């Protein structure tokens, strides 16, 4: 069984070395890792939830410190903490009543799980999770059966023990749901495409966002016909990738440069973009260049729609320095090192290099420029984001890691 610490440091080092990037990917990996953390957590007899929270938070700190720019990590950590708190509070009163019933349920569940996992384990060979699940649940039948035969004195101790187990299984369930949500969020977003994209409309997007792609494709599949302008998204020019993908789907795509967005905006009915993170005030951290596009859209009163999943929902405010910390990427994305190596020669006293290249990855777009957020749980206006935050995160965890782990 892989050591949990090894898994954590593995993901942390991947984040650190920028091997894992993008909010979707980081969110998924973080959620899966936290699931494993919860599974493997050895609970003390009392106060299981608190120790779990502590454990998750410790792991979260490591991950967040590994790459503070990937805000999705922090979002998932906070959400999981929130889940733990919720689960910890809600069912306490019901436990006694449900004890017997749920124990039996669990046993059945487990039997079912065991079967299914054995089959999947035999077919799939090396699996990460099933062994973990088995290891946890193997204890359960004993306690459950013991529970039923317990005398009345023991029933409270058993209840406490049971509640811990119960908590854990509920948690696993919730976290798995979260993983499921992350995996399916694109479909959830794409479902709303029909309501937003109308016949013969012209859509403008910038760069390449998987959400936007799915969104557009979903509308296309429902036989809507519309045109897409794609601003190519310098310096990575990921817009070209999107153009190719849309072409395969049979969508009419027109590629323009970033600098042409203002020229084109008057012919556009709607701007749809994907973002890096949604801030608590309704602003967004987005790929560089989006602010210009948002301003252009505002100027011409074109709706500026942001597609984002709930795991991009960040409980921080943009005045937080940690958040505005931009990722400065490699200058060679902008210009060719060889060609400019003459200008970047520091070796000669007279021409101490005056040429510098700055390549920030992100823009901050303030909420007043955004018309609508389309999330996997529906459409919201920027001013409503704080409510969503309250639903998704517990206030105790905001902001959870004030001191960066050094």
């Amino acid at each position: 069984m892989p050591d949990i610490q090894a898994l954590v440091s593995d993901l942390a080092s991947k984040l650190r070395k920028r091997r894992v990037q993008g909010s979707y990917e980081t969110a998924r990996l973080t959620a899966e890792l936290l699931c494993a953390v919860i599974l493997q957590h050895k609970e003390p007899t009392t106060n299981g939830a608190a120790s779990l929270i502590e454990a998750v938070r410790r792991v979260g700190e490591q991950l967040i410190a590994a790459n503070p720019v990937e805000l999705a990590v922090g979002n998932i950590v906070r959400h999981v903490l929130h889940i733990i708190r919720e689960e910890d509070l809600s069912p306490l009163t019901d436990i006694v009543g449900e004890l017997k019933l749920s124990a039996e349920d669990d046993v059945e569940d487990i039997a079912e799980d065991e079967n299914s996992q054995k089959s999947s384990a035999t077919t799939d060979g090396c699996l990460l999770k099933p062994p973990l699940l088995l290891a946890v649940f193997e204890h359960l039948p004993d306690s459950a059966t013991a529970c039923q035969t317990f005398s009345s004195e023991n029933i409270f101790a058993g209840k406490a023990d049971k509640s811990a187990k119960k908590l854990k299984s509920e948690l696993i369930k919730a976290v798995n749901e979260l993983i499921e949500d992350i995996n399916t969020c694109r479909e959830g977003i794409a479902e709303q495409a029909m309501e937003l994209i109308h016949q013969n409309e012209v859509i403008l997007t910038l760069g390449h966002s998987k959400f936007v792609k799915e969104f557009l494709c979903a509308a296309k599949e429902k036989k809507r016909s519309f045109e897409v302008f794609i601003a190519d998204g310098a310096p990575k020019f990921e817009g070209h990738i999107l153009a190719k993908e849309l072409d395969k789907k049979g969508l009419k795509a027109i590629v323009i440069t970033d600098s042409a967005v203002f020229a084109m905006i008057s012919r556009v009915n709607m701007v749809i973009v994907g973002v890096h993170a949604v801030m608590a005030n309704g602003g967004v951290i987005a790929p560089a260049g989006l602010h210009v596009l948002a301003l252009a859209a505002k100027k011409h009163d074109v709706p500026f729609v942001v597609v984002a999943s709930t795991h991009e929902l960040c409980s921080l405010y943009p005045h937080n320095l940690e958040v505005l910390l931009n990722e400065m990427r490699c200058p060679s994305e902008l210009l060719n090192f060889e060609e400019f190596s003459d200008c970047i020669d520091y070796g000669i006293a007279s021409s101490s290099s005056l040429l510098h290249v700055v390549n920030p990855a992100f823009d901050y777009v303030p909420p007043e420029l955004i018309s609508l957020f389309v999330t996997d749980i529906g459409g919201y206006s920027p001013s409503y984001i704080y409510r969503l935050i309250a639903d998704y995160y517990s206030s105790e965890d905001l902001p959870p890691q004030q001191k960066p782990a050094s």
Partner: protein
Amino acid sequence: MGAQKKRAAAAAAAARVSEDPDDLARQPLQAILLADSFTTKFRPITLERPKVLLPLVNVPMINYTLAWLEAAGVAEVFVFCCAHSKQVIDYLENSEWFSQPNFTVKTIESHNIISAGDALRLIYEQNVIHGDFVLISGDTVSNMSLTQALQEHKERKKKDNNAVMTMIIKKSKPSPITRQSRLGTDELFMAIDPNTKQLLYYEDKADHSKGTICLDKMLLAENPSISLHNDKQDCYIDICSPEVLSLFTDNFDYQHLRRHFVKGLLLDDIMGYKIFTHEIHSSYAARIDNYRSYDIVSKDIIQRWTYPYVPDVKFCGNRATKLERRGICFTAFNSEIEQSRSAQVGSFTVIGYGTKIGSNSKISDSVIGEGCTIGSNVLIEGSYIWDNVIIEDGCELRHVIVCDGVIMKAGAVLKPGVVLSFKVVIGERFVVPAYSKVSLLQQPTVHDSDEELEYADNSSGTVEFSSIQGTADQSNGEMTSESSEAHKPKLGTGGVGYIWSICEGGQEEEWRHSVAPIPEDKLTELSEAMDDDQELVTQDRTALSTSGELISDSNASEGDDNEDSKDDSVYFEKEVEATFLRAVEENVKVDHVILEVNSLRLSYNMTSADCAGAVFYSMMKLAIKTPHSSAIGLLTLYPSPFSMVASNAYPIYLSGELQQNTANIITTWQKLLKSYLLEIDEEIEIILKFEEMCLESAKEFSPLFARILHILYDKDILQEDAILRWADEKEGADESDKVFVRQSEKFIQWLREASEEED
């Protein structure tokens, strides 16, 4: 719930399965990392610490190499340690590299190895390399992706079993003035087949004084096309097949990877092994070979060209740094520094953990290590200050390297290019002269001319170190200043350490490879010297004309008006003169000289008037030179600025003698001159040329102008019409231009009268 779990598990399994075949198909890639450069360029620092552990932007160099290898998909790295192997191994053991999943680091240790060749032979004996491997030295910084190069290598290997190595190269233009790349390495010449990318020729030690490189003509015969480059930089990253190791074993005299191995393979046509190149474009790769490249690569790292190996990304367990905006650019900061309010930290500076900076200090373009204490009113510019350095108030440091534990007493000044090795103490107000290297160790007295032998005396070096360490420790007492006074240059009151005398390479080499930028006066000096060279090169017409570009560059820097035609005519003139002089020396027949000048005329696309002018110019030059040829000798052979000074220093020609000489020469060579004087225009050109010479380059003639004009007339070289028209043209000119018309007024008068008489 069960269903969900199942789905998640299946998804995870699917993800794993999809990776697996990939992994299996790929044989785990191995790498050999030479943790030793086998040179002495970083002395005196490398006497105490191996080069791969020297901090580069506060991270020991070897981490950059290892991090890149890991990212590039290398599974197993053999670190070959030699000099200070203990330190390297200790460092690696305490680092996180030994505990990485999917990435193993193994060390191979040996003490009696003196070259890369020996190291590879030893590795071959150990029989640990099973497939293709990456050969790299522990001082290389890169962020390139190996996938493509590796793919190409493998495909070539499949087709041709002799393709044993792929060398990574990158475009980088050497400076035309210093003849070295921006990394401070010498200009590198490579011949590459543009289609197959096969390396055909490799020369990194070309003799620039000759300005020539020699290619085997077989190369040209055998290959349909060759491109010759001097704008490529060798990244010292090689992808090798296992045969490379056995090749080293077979050829036990291969020592140096490039000088012996690469050149050896290229020359050896019996075995037919081939080396190919792979050029990288947008990614970064550079090796730290000398102090200059240390400086340049550090700056590249700070400017993020090596992303993601930059100070604020924790790629190897280095401490977290934060970027802070300074103006438009960024400065990397550690969260735990103490900085006075009035201290100014400029852009592109990295400051390490726990460093204190006093008030009114100015720091720019520098790297400061951990735990340093910097006093007030200190000026630090373009410098590299390692850990735990104490700099007291009022010091000035410009473009220097300061190693761990150095103490600079108040008011000390380091001139550009200084290197202070470990724990040196600089006394109060002491000024360390430029380019000096200061160490606690004495300079090894026997300077081994062979630069391969770093460690021959290495062991003794460390012993020495410990003994001197003793004295250094006492330095807080009052003993040392006296004892050291006796036999070494002092480093001011309370200073500890020896200033190394600059080794045989001399000053010449110091500025080339130093951490300080090349001073401007050196550059102008060089470009002047190069102009002279250029003349020599043109003189020696066998020279490869690499120069079309160089010439215009150098002229531009002088600020001449350099239209191309002007340039051409200047060089044409020089060529003609050279031809003429040779003709005189070797008694070449006049007809042949005419032929040669004609060919020159065609190649430079000149008019016959230009030829006439040039020939006449050469003749006059010869005339000046003749009486003193023994005394002035070769100096006046070429009309360089220096030789003009020389000839001006001997203005003692008796005018009669000079006139006589001129007459003789004109008599001898009149046929040559006449062959270009087809029309009157050319004759006028000659007069104008002569006038110009008298004014500028050969003032000796000025008193003789009229007489020589007469001689020319007598010899039928100039017709009276030409002279008269010249005089007419000059009528309207400025007074200053009319000097010679005046001088020859009588003669012209006489000519006019004569022609009138004829009429």
